């Protein structure tokens, strides 16, 4: 075993370094303490903000250590890689050194080991050996997967065993951690994370990436048909809802209303409701007063769509919106500019300031147009993400929960009931072991012994 060649072998040296649980503890504590830094310094903000907050020297130092994006820094990633290697190597090492315990088809039992156990229950019975054997064996068979009877020098022993497989629980947990890291890696290599703002009625074919200043083309278009925000009486937001349509070569292929917590998924890419904002309105409510009849008509006009006017007064079309329109050199504030085309006449430009609804009277035409309202228009802010690693991560999640449960609350248990013939009565010893929760096992042995003793009274 003490082969000098293997001892000096660099591979074994590295291997041995990674088999240490001390290393695990050091790594876990280093990850825990260094992680704190990133919660004290806000991550991924504008360099200028950092410079102002910390001053030149500290800024240089922190920047050198990647503290402004520390969870993606080389040293933090290195800690994670070391931990992964540590987990894998430790698991393999422990599995191979305990393979004689882990991989057993027909377990064998060592009577001497049970006889040496200090914690045990003993009682006497007047039943015959055969009676006891029948009753006890069925009792054990019902509770333990494997059981066997062996003769001893002055009687026999019934062994039972179950839960050997639970020894794999801890490896399941370790595997789950490795899966999480692999899933994260897949996501960061093959996935992306970006955002796009789409105005109501508009569509987008490209998104802006978050990690780098880059635009990414999608091979389909996404249209926002409508965006709605509703509020509670308290003023707190109640719901953000975008009606989205996926377009393939201009043809709608999928329609869905998304809200926070209910994204749209298409071709592995997900669109999440993430923000919203208002855009200049492109639909106004008009009051059109006919000077011929004195009637007032209320119409909605959409930008660049001709509106047929009543009483055969012609068409009207809103052309643009100005933040500060000028009239004879005076600033008249926000205004819409439209074109009025009377039937058979020349088009006339009409200015409709929001502040002065009677402004159009000055034109002295046969109708007066006034903007009395704007239909609000929003854009929806979508988070766009693709993460092909997410299913690996989710399987890791499931394995971790199952693995933790097995590791913490289930154990490999062995029990031995020895029946020794002492002439008039039979002396019965119940003892058992478990690889975990020894006190729990002891309570269980006590309970079993009590039950067996009750059988005894009945017999």
């Amino acid at each position, binding site marked *: 075993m003490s082969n000098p060649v293997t001892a000096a072998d660099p591979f074994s040296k590295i291997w041995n370094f990674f088999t240490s649980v001390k290393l695990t*503890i050091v790594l876990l504590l280093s990850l825990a303490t260094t992680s704190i830094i990133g*919660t004290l310094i806000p991550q991924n903000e504008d360099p200028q903000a950092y410079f102002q907050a910390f001053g030149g020297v500290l800024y240089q130092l922190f920047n050198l250590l990647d503290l402004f994006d520390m969870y993606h820094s080389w040293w933090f990633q290195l800690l994670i890689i070391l931990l992964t290697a540590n987990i894998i190597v430790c698991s393999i090492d422990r599995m191979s050194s305990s393979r004689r315990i882990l991989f057993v088809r027909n377990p064998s039992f060592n009577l001497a080991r049970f006889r040496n156990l200090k914690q045990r229950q003993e009682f006497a019975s007047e039943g015959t050996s055969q009676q006891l054997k029948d009753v006890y064996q069925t009792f054990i068979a019902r509770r333990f997967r494997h059981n066997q009877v062996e003769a001893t020098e002055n009687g026999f022993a019934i062994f039972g065993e179950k839960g050997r497989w639970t020894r794999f629980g801890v490896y399941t947990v370790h595997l789950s951690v490795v899966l999480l890291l692999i899933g994260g890696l897949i996501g960061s290599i093959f996935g992306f994370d970006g955002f796009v703002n789409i105005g109501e009625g508009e569509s987008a074919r490209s998104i802006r990436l978050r990690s780098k200043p880059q635009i990414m083309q999608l091979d389909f278009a996404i249209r926002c048909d409508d965006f709605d925000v509703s509020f509670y009486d308290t003023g707190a937001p109640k719901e953000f809802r975008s009606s989205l349509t996926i377009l393939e070569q201009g043809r709608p292929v999928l329609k869905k209303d998304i809200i926070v917590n209910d994204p749209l998924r298409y071709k592995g890419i997900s669109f999440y409701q993430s923000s919203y904002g208002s855009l200049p309105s492109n639909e106004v409510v008009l009051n059109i007063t006919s000077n011929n009849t004195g009637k007032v008509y209320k119409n909605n006009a959409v930008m660049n769509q001709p509106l047929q006017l009543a009483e055969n007064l012609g068409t009207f079309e809103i052309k643009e919106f100005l933040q500060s329109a000028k009239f004879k050199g005076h600033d008249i504030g926000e205004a819409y500019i439209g074109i009025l085309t009377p039937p058979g006449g020349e088009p006339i430009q009409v200015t409709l300031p929001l502040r002065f609804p009677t402004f159009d009277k000055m034109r002295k035409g046969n109708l007066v147009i006034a903007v009395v309202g704007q239909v609000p228009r929003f854009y929806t802010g979508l988070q766009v993400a693709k993460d092909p690693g997410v299913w690996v991560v989710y399987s890791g999640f499931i394995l971790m929960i199952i693995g933790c449960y097995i590791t913490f609350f289930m154990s490999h248990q062995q029990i031995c009931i020895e029946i020794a013939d002492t002439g008039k009565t039979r002396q019965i010893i119940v003892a058992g072991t478990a690889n975990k929760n020894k006190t729990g096992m002891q309570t269980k042995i006590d309970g079993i012994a009590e039950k067996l003793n009750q059988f005894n009274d009945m017999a």
Partner: protein
Amino acid sequence: MSGSLVLSIVTFIYGLAGFLYICAWIFRKELLGRVATWIALTGLVGNTVGILVRWVESYQLGIGHAPFSNLYESLVFFAWVIVLIYLIIERRIANNIIGAFATPIACLVMAYASLKPGIPSAIQPLIPALKSNWLIAHVITCFIGYAAFALAFVISGMYLMKKGRDDEQNLKAKITKFLTLFVFAALFSRVLFISDWALAFLVAVPICLGFFGIVFLVRNMPAEFKTRLLDRFPEPRALDELGYQLILLGFLFLSIGIISGAVWANSAWGRYWGWDPKETWSLITWFVYATLLHARLTRGWHGRRIAYLSMIGFAAVVFTYFGVNLLPGLHSYGSF
């Protein structure tokens, strides 16, 4: 009767139960202990009713949602789980001294929820980000975990009390202990109820003096008093094992809590992990307890060292729960 009123009464019931548990412990009156158990059970029933009434009330207001949506509601549920797990332990190990430490904590949690300014007890409508089926799963699992860790903390404290003075202690260790306690006292005063750092350090002084005063008094007490106080504590081995079992329970539920939060984050924001301060701190807590489990299972750590680690772990829990609000930077929970 409104849910909040029921819950205020429950605060006093837990307080009374705690008082009786303490009397039962100090004056060695078994009857008082039994009464305390029934009162704690009454408190638990009241706590349950309070939560359910609140649930119904939210539907009557037309904003129906499970009562796990804000700090007040989570604290109330936290107290509920603490008392529930404690009563199960009491029944299983047939010892009610732990109650003298556990029920006062439940009472303090409830009192903090209703008295701390800035924790509104009114039922609020859910903001869009919280409208998810994951809300219930996430909050329930996290708080079962936190409550198990809180009780493990209590039991670690009792373990250290029972074990008594560490004889090998030198001056350096003493100073370290004092400074650690001082810094933690200041930090948690700041996190929990003081809005100013200088004041928090000032408040930490009497806290430390009080703590070491009690320790000094207990040490110099006549031996018979000391035995009278400590002899009915469970054996150190039993406390060690019980604390460990609670940490296992807590770790399982903390893991499920973090996982449910990650799945939820992925459905709301398109990412399962974003190194947000709250996420990071829950992971730090997970690392601390993972260290404890490995140290115990493979390096054979027991007793004092595990008790200290369990206390550090619980400090991380409290910081994850309350401290994150102090940290700089936006985090996405409130906004969308």
